């Protein structure tokens, strides 16, 4: 999975990455946009910046994110 700026995503599961903090459990099920993907090397392991509706902007591991269905249709 690779994300680009403006992609609409869902936080669909917890990440097992060490960067996942307990307060991020509140983000499960939230939708939002990728606001700053890994700006250098498209590293699937990089933390990327997302803005979630009602939850603010955070940097999360990519394995907890998925593109929303309507977004996948356009890719």
């Amino acid at each position, binding site marked *: 999975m690779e994300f680009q*700026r403006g992609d609409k995503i869902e936080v669909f599961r917890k990440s097992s990455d060490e960067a996942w903090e307990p*307060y991020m459990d509140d983000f499960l099920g939230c939708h939002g946009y990728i606001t*700053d993907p890994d700006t250098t090397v*498209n590293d699937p392991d990089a933390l990327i910046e997302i803005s979630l*509706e009602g939850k603010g902007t955070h940097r999360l591991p990519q394995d907890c994110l998925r593109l929303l269905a309507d977004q996948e249709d356009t890719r």
Partner: protein
Amino acid sequence: MEICPVRQTILFLSEQIGPKGLSDPKGQRISEQILSLAEEIAEGAAGDRHLAAIDALVEEYDYKGSPLKTREAGKIVKGYLDEHREVFLSHIETRNCPSHDCGKLAPSPCQMACPAGIDVPTYLALIAQGKDAEAIEVIRRDNPLPWVCGLICTRPCEMMCVRARIDTPVSIKFLKAFAAERAMSDRAYKNPSPRPANGKKVCVVGAGPGGLSCAYYLALMGYKVRIIEDLPIPGGMLMVGIPRYRLPREVIDREVAMIEALGVEISYNTRFGTDVTKDDLEKDGYEAFFLAIGAHKAWDLGIQGEKDFPKVIEAVTFLKDVALGEHHAPGRRVVVIGGGNVAIDAARTSLRLGAEAVTIAYRRSRNQMPADVEEVEQAEEEGIEFSFLTIPKSIEGQGDEITALSCVKAELKKKKGSDRLAPVPIEGQDFTIPADAVISAIGQYVDDDGMDAFDGVNWTRRGTIEVNHASMETAQPGVFAAGDAVSGPATVIEAIGGGKRAAEAIDRYLKGIPQPRMPKIPVRYNTEPVIEMSASRKMTLKYPEMPMLNMDRRRTTFQQVELGYDEASVRAEASRCLRCDICRRCGECVDICRDKMGINALKLGYLEFDHNSPTDFRVTAENCITCGACAANCENKALVMDEKDGKRRLLLCGTVLNSQDIQYCDGCGAKMGSAEYTRFISRKTRNISPTTDSRLLCNNCQRRNGAASGAPDAPPPMA
């Protein structure tokens, strides 16, 4: 999703004072008093003593002889307060309810999206009114570098801007730059008054955006702050990573000067761990440390020839040298390897220094480039060439001179077990790009040199400093960190937000107050008056086009490329804001108009985040009867009915959705609804209230006429 505890408390207390609630008058009285205070918390009208007052009232439930139900109610309310105290406090301090349950405090999406939590709707409203200095004052409560961010922010706020669901987002970033420049020019860009000095000292390592932000807020709290900076100039990556054609040096200098004016001392050309040590600083009375050392070290390319030629240059080193005054072209034919913003910056800088041909070689395709689309387009306009699906193999040359970058063409394929497309070399499709300089821009990492003294700090497997993101606190007591050193190469606004959070956490640490569980909700400072305009104007205002420096100068000088909007464009663009700090997009108005009134005049397709449909404020006037049902049910008063110049009007956050002539009773002259409203009522009541008079009559006159003629006494119902 769980309901907000403040709202939950209000609902519970409302039950206690209702018919099935508490039976004892004292229990009822206590519940009423707590309810009143809780409602003020939910409306953003609470003061510092509200929670203490509620605590005291809760104790009164347990009075001598109080019924069991009353004592139980007291326990439940106390439970809400104890379990969710931070949420109650957050409502009081920030005047925001992140779950939107307390309608008046629903945060605007742009403010929530900003990593620094800037109150965007408030400052846009001020800019629309021409109050630039006041706008800057609002911004600097959360971000001490509004001018810098107005030019180079990655603007997550615009990504979440609700106006984008209608046409294009409000140009929040550039409006901020305009306001900062105007305020600075008018000598109206002022620092707030700091609190009296508290005698405590904090050391900040790094004068980048994170360090400057932390230092600014600590200085305002009364701390003595010293920043240790390795470079001879302030700004960190702002100064040595971002080229001057995007961010002029004077902008950084002026905003840093404002921070220094608060008493912040910056020690330049001073390397932490070498020129000054943690022990030295502790002996000098520094009680807390904030690490904002950035990510300045470049990854190696890992290809043959990389270490053999002096003209293989790391992009961060190249950009730094140029920023520090080294203005020589790296070569005649330059190849930049990478696809991010740093690669674009290095390429455009090479061009400005006189390179004849500049090519960016990137392993993937154009639409996978991580660089900002605008930056890529501007580079293309200036004549930068792109070689996509290009994997560098080796650097060719003779002696010290590079002659070419040897590459192989790639195709994107899914690797086994992964749904990610990866570049795979195509056998036999080797080629070369002529070059005499190669710049590598494939990423940076944190340089931990000099950090040995912080032996209690944990480092992540990504080579960054591990922190609790709510407080930016490391595992070593008294040591905090933020910016690229924590996130890896990231955005300026994240670093600024992290610096601000760290300043608050350092203050708590030095006062012995526990740290928060999660990052603080942004603070809403004010609700500015709305700007009135017609629906047509609101719909037809367009995102202004940015005037650009002419192409010859863009290719030859470091003058700022984006010249900024003119004043008229700025005021108009600011008034395009939908004021999501007032309308929380609950959709109650649409439901009532469509389902209860059967009119369906409100075509507000932008209300939902996930399911948008077309919006046109102008369409409302086609069917709206100005009955006022929508406005009467709007909790936040985003929709209001008013009367002006003989017309009844419906306004949504200042946008006039409809305006209809007010009618007067032909019998007594009393004020009545619009003709559309009267027709609607007549249609609804024609079976029970037969027309007895062809004149337009109010309820009272109809009743009088009905009584006189013997017709049924049935005035039209009010909406």
